[in-house]
């Protein structure tokens, strides 16, 4: 085994996050140790309140851990940066900008010239399946929820980050759109070779997307176990209906049921 932090894309070492409210001290995350390889697709699952979204925000740099440290490419990081793009569960597409202006937002900040920006916007919209003519000049309010999510993903990918962080990105979408976007996400991952950290509570989504599933438990939020799905890339949507897939899904469900009912006992 390689030494901690070396050769890893993301290395989390003894991360602890504590919220201090007026009445009590809430430990959101405790003893988080995790190595994520370059190009890996890691999915975080766990009962609500296990801190999986919090952990993603720590990796994004949006939340400073109370203690512990995070290394990106071996260097300590504790603020947000363009190397880690986030696709949030909420609608984070800027409503006052057109689709095109949204996608090129990060590029413009970096001073990429106009022609190059137009090229990248074109390519990224195609990558997320937004090919409707004239869509570039549309405002988000004219798009459906699924299309806005695609714009959001295109905006993140256009910035060419090393790591793509996705926090229950499809949680608010209907089943059909969700499945389509899962396929798109895998396609983007295979084409761009990005490292992806993905939070979900949808077990099928986790099994379909992940190279590695990190299962988290509550009280306090901690890493309970890791599961490696047996499905190697390229993964096809049809694997969802196989017996093996459903068997793994059941096993995961058992673990989660245990964690959400007896979660508190694990650390006792």
């Amino acid at each position, binding site marked *: 085994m390689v030494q901690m932090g070396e050769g890893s894309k993301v290395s989390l070492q003894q991360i602890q996050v504590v919220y201090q409210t007026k009445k009590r001290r809430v430990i959101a995350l405790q003893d988080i140790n995790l190595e994520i390889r370059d190009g890996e697709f890691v999915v975080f699952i766990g009962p609500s309140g296990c801190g999986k979204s919090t952990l993603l925000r720590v990796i994004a740099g949006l939340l400073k851990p109370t203690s512990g440290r995070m290394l990106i490419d071996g260097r300590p990081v504790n603020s947000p940066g363009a190397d880690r793009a986030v696709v949030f569960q909420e609608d984070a597409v800027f409503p*006052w900008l057109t689709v095109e202006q949204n996608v090129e937002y990060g590029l413009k*900040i970096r001073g990429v010239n106009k022609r190059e920006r137009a090229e990248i916007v074109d390519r990224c919209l195609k990558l997320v399946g937004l090919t409707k003519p004239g869509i570039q000049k549309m405002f988000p309010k004219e798009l459906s929820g699924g299309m806005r999510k695609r714009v959001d993903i295109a905006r993140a990918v256009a910035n060419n980050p090393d790591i793509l962080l996705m926090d229950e990105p499809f949680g608010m979408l209907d089943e059909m759109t969700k499945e389509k976007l899962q396929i798109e996400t895998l396609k983007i991952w295979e084409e761009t070779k990005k490292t992806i950290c993905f939070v979900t509570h949808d077990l099928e989504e986790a099994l379909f997307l992940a190279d590695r599933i990190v299962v988290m438990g509550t009280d306090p939020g901690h890493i309970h176990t890791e599961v490696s799905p047996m499905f190697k890339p390229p993964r096809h949507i049809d694997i969802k209906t196989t017996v093996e897939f459903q068997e793994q899904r059941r096993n995961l469900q058992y673990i989660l049921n245990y964690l959400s009912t007896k979660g508190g006992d694990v650390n006792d």
Partner: protein
Amino acid sequence: MTDEISSDKETKISSWFNAFKMNRPLKLVPIFALLIIWYVVTNLGLVRPLFLPSPQSVIQSYVDLWPSLPAATGISLSMILLGFTIGSTIGVALSILMAYSKGFLLVFETIFDLLRPVPVFALIPMFVLWFGIGMAPQVGLIALGCSVIMGVTTTEAVRNIPNIYIQASYTLGANRRVVFRTIVLPTIFPHLIGAIRLAAASSFGLDVAAEFMGSQTGLGYLMIVQQQYLNTSGIFAIVILYSVIAFVVDKLIAMIESRFTAWTDRSSKNNVLINH
């Protein structure tokens, strides 16, 4: 002016007028009804002219007042514009500084909270005392009123910026300055436009009040003179002039508003309450 331009202008005006006629005939009904009632009531002698002058006498007043109207209007309007600009700038700037700097927040939050409930009109005697009679107290009063309106709204608007946009911006590589320019300004702008309409409307009222108290010029002063001569129709004439100007200004701001807030879904929400 060449024929081409004037004809172009004419078609624009007539098409605007047509649109007005076509889309809003119903809106004009209450206005005409009021005018007719006014005419009938005053001409039948049901009300004494001292309390409600007839429409004809109001029109006559415009003729009588004509020599002094342009100058008075000009002075009042420039006072309003000056006070409004100074006050709004100070209000917006202070609120944004308060949002960005803990020091500013510490100093000004308490002062603002103490000042907000003070009725601006109650300060008129103090303003006259401090700044004397003339333009300074008027401009000061309008500026104070506008700064409070704009300040409160800006503070609220900045507080209501969805966190998610700021976080998204940071993760796309923005720094504080970029966040301010690309997230803070565009999201608070629609709120500010609403406040600007309110502040503009208030500055007309503040201007009249200020001119009542201590002034030698302007429309409000002219009104006081009419009052001294018991010339009710003259007062009516000036009130109507004030209202028309305020109405036009409000519509102009509304036009700018719809241009800059096309991205919000506000326009589509307008009729929700009526339709359901």
